[in-house]
């Protein structure tokens, strides 16, 4: 086994698949025309954009390709959804409801609205597996609530929220509902009607598409104040020359993930996920699973806290063994704060610092998993031996 090639961080980003890259290729230099142009040279690019828009709409079960806006990624989709609806509805009310475990792309956008535009935001708590309680949502609704935004699946702990139910509560109160589905698309079924959502964010690089391209679904009739001013692209809802190769790549990646083999392979990923979870619980004491088990967990997500040790040290040791994983610890970003998601689950700061996330996808093998399961306990032991908190 080539030790230096185990990639267990697919929730962070994925490589562009060969078939996706191939489809993108001619749009860099052959069909490079600006889709807004009139002449035949630009026809290929404008057709490619239309085709992609139809595919995204179809994939999400949207009624109409006009409900799709292409953006520069998940972050922009979240920003546009949250600021766009909040600002469009600000005369109706200035209250937003979200959860404590959202991605920073939603959380910091809510904070921006609080700090700069006088919005009030309710951050719903979650239970110890990361679930939002629909009763809490009901209680948080106020007459001036204009937007509810709750992520479909959490990027750190893999918890899949009961979005259909939460969306239904929003709608029966006539409130717009947005979900960040960046981690869900191509992993679990995502249908905007089944989910009762008005807006939904996705990002191509999370499912073997390219970085720098995403989309926002906006249900017809949903008021949205554009956040990128300029040309008349995207029906005036998102200005800027279209990233045509990126849009083609997003479309090709969705098609790749729809393939039967890929769909069936998800069972194998779930098997690998559960193997890791079970073996860690059997072999490493003081290990605490973060997030739920079974169906309500993303297929490829594993997240543990290992008491008495710190996340970055684990990552560096794994890296020396050729394994790329990640930690909830935000140490590297210059903040001293551990993961807000783990704290929301009720973990102490100390425990939260010791988290490890493994995120699998189709390219991962059982051999890789076994190798990881062999190396991890040694690393945990080594670090615990060094830890002043551990009374071995």
């Amino acid at each position: 086994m080539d030790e230096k090639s185990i990639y267990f961080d697919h929730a962070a980003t994925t490589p562009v698949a060969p078939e996706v890259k191939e489809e993108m290729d001619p749009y860099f230099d052959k069909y490079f025309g600006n889709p807004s142009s009139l002449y035949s040279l630009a026809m290929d690019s404008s057709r490619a954009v239309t085709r992609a828009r139809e595919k995204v709409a179809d994939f999400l079960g949207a009624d109409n390709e006009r409900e799709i806006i292409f953006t520069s990624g998940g972050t922009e989709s979240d920003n546009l959804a949250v600021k766009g609806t909040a600002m469009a509805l600000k005369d109706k009310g200035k209250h937003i409801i979200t959860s404590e475990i959202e991605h920073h792309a939603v959380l910091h956008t809510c904070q921006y609205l609080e700090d700069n535009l006088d919005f009030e935001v309710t951050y719903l708590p979650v239970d110890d597996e990361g679930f939002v309680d629909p009763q809490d949502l009901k209680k948080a609704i106020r007459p001036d609530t204009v937007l509810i935004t709750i992520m479909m699946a959490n990027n750190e702990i893999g918890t899949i929220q009961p979005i259909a139910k939460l969306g239904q509560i929003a709608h029966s109160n006539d409130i717009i509902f947005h979900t960040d589905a960046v981690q869900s698309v191509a992993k679990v079924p995502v249908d905007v009607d089944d989910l009762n959502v008005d807006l939904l964010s996705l990002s191509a690089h999370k499912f073997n598409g390219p970085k720098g391209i995403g989309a926002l679904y906006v249900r017809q009739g949903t008021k949205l104040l554009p956040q990128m001013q300029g040309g008349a692209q995207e029906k005036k809802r998102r200005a800027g020359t279209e990233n045509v190769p990126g849009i083609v790549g997003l479309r090709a990646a969705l098609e790749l993930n729809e393939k039967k083999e890929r769909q069936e392979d998800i069972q194998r990923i779930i098997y690998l996920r559960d193997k890791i979870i079970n073996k860690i619980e059997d072999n490493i004491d003081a290990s605490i699973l973060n997030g739920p088990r079974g169906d309500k967990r993303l297929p490829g997500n594993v997240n543990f806290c290992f008491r008495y040790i710190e996340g970055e040290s684990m990552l560096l040791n794994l890296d020396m063994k050729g394994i790329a994983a990640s930690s909830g610890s935000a140490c590297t970003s210059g903040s001293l704060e551990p993961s807000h998601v783990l704290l929301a689950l009720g973990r102490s700061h100390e425990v939260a610092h010791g988290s490890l996330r493994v995120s699998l996808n189709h390219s991962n093998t059982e051999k890789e998993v076994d190798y990881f399961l062999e190396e991890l306990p040694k690393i945990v032991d080594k670090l615990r031996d060094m830890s002043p908190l551990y009374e071995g």
Partner: protein
Amino acid sequence: MYSDKVMEHFNNPRNVGEIENPDAVGEVGNPVCGDIMKLFLKIEDNIITDIKFKTFGCGAAVATSSMVTELAQGKDLESALEITNETVAEALDGLPSQKMHCSNLAAEALQEAIEDYRSAGDDTEESENQKGQETKKTVEAK
């Protein structure tokens, strides 16, 4: 991100462990911030004759702990007190900027241990913990 020297110390940390009946102990950091270092010293005739550490923390925290034990080993207390966080970072060929303030605490643990030794006597546990907290606070405020 880290220099080769940091990674080398992280991979093969020097002087990991505890000293039984140490002459001095220094501890800095707290679990909230994700970095805790504990230094154990043997001191004979004003000279550091043995030094060991235990650290809970990131790569920088481990490497700086390891480096400070190397730098202090065999030094007299006055020279040891001259070791600063900057000395340690330099000896490691530098640290990423975001690590300079949050994980570069080893020299403070050393100072803390020496002061603890000099103020000698009882009540050690107490004052030690307090100091750790205070030191940490100053660092964060930077």
